[in-house]
């Protein structure tokens, strides 16, 4: 028996969840940092830093094998002229920032946390505040190295094994283990961000503000007060940023982060609707109103929640659900307003809802973003009521030609997913060619694709 096989056999069973802490799975987790398939064809799914909210990195069946690649985090090459970075897939964006930001390089696309691995960024085809201008993560990837179902190492990229590449970007780890990634970093002038914030009175104004800012600002995002009702639905704060020039950043020193952490699960009554209403109201009062311009550090702009370790504990033991959908531009504001109103009526409190305009979809079959508007929010998990609410929201999304983001999803039904993804059949064909036995599968793929458990 090979080393990998012996190792996988004797791994202890442990409880495992996504960042939302619901659902809870049981798994054997290989954390050796030498990603390799065990012999014998046992199904596996890769996992990074566990920031996907739902069941994307939980095993297909209880007790199944999960390969965590966070210890495969070596940099294998960097070209200081072009910004081309070649690394093992477990390298985190936090590590990239630590090593390369002082030299003037920044991830080309970053999600709302830096505690994600490069491999996960590819598998989820993550997007960021610059999607309207730059697209998603996969569009900056030049080459991937996969371990495919037969145990072979296969390189792919935009021109090399293109179909496998397009199925892997956004493919949630279901085409193979991503072991190496080559991507292009972006040159930036400073680690500081020139940030403008302005209060907006409603959804139409928010969409117009995002549109107006899109040409001049590489980073835009809106925060919405989910608890505002009636005529105020969609009121919130528009934020737009760009990297500061050395002149604008002169004399500033990055704060040495004092890592706060949530040490224990919050009591379940803490995030009650009244508290949420006040939080949203205060946030709006604080940052809303007239246009303000200031210079902030990159981490305050991109990663405000990273400042609080284990913030997911704020929702208590029962966990929470994250919901993110995108609706095509043509759908306009009405379905977004419908979703917000439905949430309000259900009393499904959210810390904050984030709204963002997306640019054109990428060529990757299952990539989430499409030209239009995306809305992300979280809600305490309340059992069947939460599930019913999400199915209802999904119906609105499907009716308008939108879809949900798999990195956040724990609930969507297979039949709904099929209606959201126009290129699902193409993706399935590529997957079946490379992994006919569906060796790479997860709790999510069992739920959404009908894989065997």
């Amino acid at each position: 028996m090979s080393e990998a096989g012996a190792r996988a056999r004797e791994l202890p069973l442990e409880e495992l969840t996504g960042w939302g802490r619901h659902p809870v799975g049981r798994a054997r987790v290989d954390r050796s940092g030498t990603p390799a398939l065990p012999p014998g064809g046992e199904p596996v799914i890769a996992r990074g830093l566990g920031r996907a909210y739902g069941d994307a990195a939980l095993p297909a069946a209880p007790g199944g094998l999960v390969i965590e690649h966070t210890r495969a985090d070596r940099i294998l090459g960097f070209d200081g002229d072009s910004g081309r970075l070649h690394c093992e897939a477990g390298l985190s964006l936090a590590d990239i920032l630590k090593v390369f930001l002082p030299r003037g390089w920044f991830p080309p696309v970053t999600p709302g946390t830096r505690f994600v691995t490069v491999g996960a960024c590819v598998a989820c085809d993550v997007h960021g505040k610059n999607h309207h201008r730059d697209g998603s993560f996969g569009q900056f990837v030049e080459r991937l190295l996969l371990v495919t179902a037969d145990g072979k190492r296969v390189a792919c990229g935009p021109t090399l094994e293109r179909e496998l590449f397009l199925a892997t970007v956004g493919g949630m780890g279901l085409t193979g283990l991503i072991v190496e990634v080559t991507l292009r970093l972006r040159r930036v002038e400073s680690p500081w961000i020139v940030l403008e914030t302005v209060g907006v009175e409603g959804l139409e104004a928010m969409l117009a503000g995002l549109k107006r800012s899109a040409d001049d600002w590489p980073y835009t995002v809106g925060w919405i007060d989910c608890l505002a009702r009636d005529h105020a639905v969609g009121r919130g704060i528009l934020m737009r940023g760009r990297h500061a020039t050395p002149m604008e950043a002169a004399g500033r020193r990055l704060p040495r982060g004092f890592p706060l952490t949530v040490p224990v699960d919050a009591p379940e009554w803490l995030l009650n609707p009244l508290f949420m209403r006040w939080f949203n109201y205060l946030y709006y009062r604080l940052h809303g109103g007239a246009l303000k311009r200031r210079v902030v550090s990159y981490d305050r702009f991109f990663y405000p929640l990273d400042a609080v370790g284990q913030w997911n504990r704020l929702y208590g033991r029962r966990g929470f659900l994250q919901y993110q959908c995108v609706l095509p531009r043509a759908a306009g504001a009405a379905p977004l307003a419908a979703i917000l109103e439905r949430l309000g009526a259900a009393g499904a409190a959210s810390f904050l809802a984030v709204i963002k305009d997306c640019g054109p979809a990428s060529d990757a079959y299952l990539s989430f973003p499409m030209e239009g508007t995306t809305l992300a929010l979280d809600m305490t998990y309340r059992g069947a009521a939460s599930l019913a609410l999400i199915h209802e929201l999904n119906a609105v999304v499907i009716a308008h030609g939108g879809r949900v983001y798999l990195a956040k999803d724990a609930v969507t039904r297979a039949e709904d997913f099929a209606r959201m993804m126009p290129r699902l059949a193409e993706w399935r064909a590529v997957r079946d060619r490379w992994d006919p036995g569906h060796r790479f599968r997860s709790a999510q793929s069992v739920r959404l694709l009908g894989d065997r458990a």
Partner: protein
Amino acid sequence: MKVAFVGATRGMGRALARALAERGDALFLLGRDAAELALSARDLEARGPRAPVGHAPLDLGRPAGFADALDAADRALGGLDALVVTGGAFGRQEELAADPARLAALLEVNFTGTAVLCQQAAARLATRGGGLICAFSSVAGDRARRGNYLYGASKAGLSVFLDGLDLAYRERGVRVLCVKPGFVRTAMTAGLPVPPFAGEPVAVAAAVVRAMDRGRHQVYAPGIWRWIMLVIRALPRAVLRRVQF
């Protein structure tokens, strides 16, 4: 510093090698797996200002090869002035108890090999005016426990050796640092039950670099283990007989 490093490919060694590279120390990697050494060398070259990072074979279980390995490091670094050994073997008590060959190999690597290498390097450094020897022992060597005395014995021997090496060589300019990690989350300990006060490799690396700079002869990492072991060393034998740990 110009550091010959045994164990830089994984775990705490990987984190410590990165910390040294990032602050500008020159590194030369020694170990068994040439392919792994080459990958880690590329990682360290990208992270630090000092390239290239070279490597050569060394097996802690084969002292006959140590002189050649140190020669290779000396040549590449233009005279090394520090040796760091984080590499070593680990086995669970029940596996070691059941497999005499594996137990012998672990004792050979963790004690004999590491001691012989450090002794050889210390002698070399003393002839050229001094330097630093840093090796990773373990809190497991501070007091025997029924649950891991076999691994613990290999580290107890190493701790005593390093303590003595420091006494013998410090006046000749060779500082010796014995690192005693508590439970640290690495690939080596993956799958073991995680006790309270478990540490992370990056934090251990930072503590070790601080201890190097301050000329300490011993450092516990995470630091709280210093106090935990103070208590455990003071426990009466009758207590140790009764508790299952």
